[in-house]
């Protein structure tokens, strides 16, 4: 017996999602790289939705501009422009806002709703100074008669402007990029599409992981909701067991490895790499000094002995990071840069950082690494330490003190200092 192919997306027809919701988005099957950093093996979708109530219609997000034709055709298949009372932009990124200017031109009576923080992104993305919009916050609602949209302020998932919209009566959560993934399948619904688990995990790992603290805040708003479906802005519509996906986000944003570091302890990771053993000896002295301070758990790692990504996992949860590098040709060495350039997937903001190293000629590397850590929004409260060639006993003593100072900074122990600006 031939299996019937369940192709939900058909020509330019809208696809029913619930009693009052239709999908009116676009498939992009040929896309292979999204936004420079993400790969996709079968493309992506730009999910837009239309909600019909007794007193009007709402459009939730639009599509990337070059797919406008198909978006408007799907919209026209189930509604006329003069019925559109509400337009919601859960996210202003061009892959979702591309058709907005034309939509607003065709439906001038519609009211646009965006989040409060979205205001700072409007000019840059929509290049408009005269857009009329209303900003909304958590639990603000808008009525379509017998259908109610309730907003949830969920910023930094993954831009400042992001928010979610909940259709109360049908229990559908329009989640923007949250629970989304770059996976293109014309069967559309998660109980029918191909195996998209790796896309879902990959998307979280690259897009949401740096904003874990914001994921947790959003989950506090989402977990209490009754959910029939999650309708994200990319990838499959999650109508089958949507709560499993909420649970998965909770798992992914909770500490993945059991940690032995006690609650009151701060963790300090010292990374180093060394050619002739000089930077290594400095590292050992710093490790010894830091280890004297109570409530600080210190680890020492030679970068030669590992690939980058296991360290990224440790860095995600560490309170302080110290990098030791020689200077070769006026630069820090590649293994250090490899690690420092791999931290965009985690949040480093507010972690303590410091740098050290031995050098032969000019020793630029330590300051370059410090600049990089400042760029990663880390706090550098202990100036870097550089030693020419082989460290003397006195210099190793200074390294121990450096280690103690960093550990003390982690536990908030700072000696009171008065400084004249001239000395800076």
């Amino acid at each position: 017996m031939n299996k019937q192919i369940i192709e939900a997306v058909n020509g330019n027809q809208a696809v029913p999602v619930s009693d009052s919701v239709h999908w009116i988005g676009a498939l992009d099957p040929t896309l292979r790289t999204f936004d420079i950093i993400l790969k996709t093996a079968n493309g992506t979708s730009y999910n837009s939705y239309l909600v019909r109530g007794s007193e009007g219609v709402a459009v939730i997000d639009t599509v990337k501009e070059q797919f406008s034709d198909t978006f408007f055709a799907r919209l026209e298949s189930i509604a006329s422009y003069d019925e559109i009372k509400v337009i919601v932009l859960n996210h202003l990124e061009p892959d979702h806002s591309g058709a907005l200017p034309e939509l607003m031109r065709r439906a001038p009576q519609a009211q646009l709703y965006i989040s409060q923080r979205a205001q700072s992104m409007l000019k840059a993305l929509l290049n408009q100074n005269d857009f009329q919009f209303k900003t909304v916050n958590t639990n603000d609602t808008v009525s379509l008669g017998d259908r109610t949209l309730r907003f949830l302020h969920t910023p930094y998932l993954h831009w400042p402007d992001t928010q979610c919209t909940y259709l109360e009566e049908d229990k559908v959560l329009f989640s923007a990029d949250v629970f989304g993934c770059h996976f293109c399948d014309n069967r559309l619904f998660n109980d029918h599409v191909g195996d998209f688990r790796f896309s879902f995990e990959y998307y979280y790992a690259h897009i949401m992981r740096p904003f874990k603290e914001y994921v947790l805040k959003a989950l506090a708003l989402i977990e209490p909701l009754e959910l029939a479906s999650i309708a994200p802005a990319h990838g499959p519509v999650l109508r089958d067991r949507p709560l499993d996906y909420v649970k998965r986000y909770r798992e992914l944003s909770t500490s993945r490895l059991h940690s032995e570091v006690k609650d009151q302890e701060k963790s300090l990771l010292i990374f180093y790499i060394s050619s002739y053993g000089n930077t290594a000896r400095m590292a050992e002295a710093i490790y010894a000094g830091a280890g004297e301070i109570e409530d600080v758990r210190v680890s020492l790692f030679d970068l030669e002995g590992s690939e980058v990504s296991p360290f990224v996992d440790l860095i995600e949860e560490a309170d302080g990071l110290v990098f030791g590098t020689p200077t070769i040709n006026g630069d820090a060495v590649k293994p250090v840069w490899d690690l420092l350039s791999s931290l965009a997937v985690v949040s480093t903001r507010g972690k303590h950082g410091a740098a050290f190293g031995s050098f032969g000629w000019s020793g630029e590397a330590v300051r370059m690494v410090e600049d990089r850590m400042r760029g990663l929004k880390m706090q550098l409260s202990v100036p870097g330490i550089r030693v020419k060639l082989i460290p003397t006993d006195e210099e190793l003593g200074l390294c121990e003190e450096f280690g103690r100072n960093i550990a003390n900074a982690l536990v908030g122990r700072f000696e009171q200092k008065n400084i004249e600006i001239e000395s800076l």
Partner: protein
Amino acid sequence: MAKAKLTFKDINVTVTVPIGVRVIEISDKVGSGIVYGCREGDCGTCLMKVEDGWENLSTPSVVEDKVLREHAAGKHFRLACQAQVLGDVTVSPA
């Protein structure tokens, strides 16, 4: 030259500075936890809490006010890349 004391509460450091200096000119040099993004008053990354001496900072510009509003900043919060020291002030990361 008129001077003032700029104190970074999180690291317990007080710097004597000339009037008119912006917090951003000092905070990196002493290792405070205030972090920066665009460094030109647009992104809101450098939001700082003014613990004391609120009235001793320059008045926010229209542009800074807009950014503070967009970030739903509380009353005693300013952008460290914009705020200029006019008298004794104590600040900490937001």
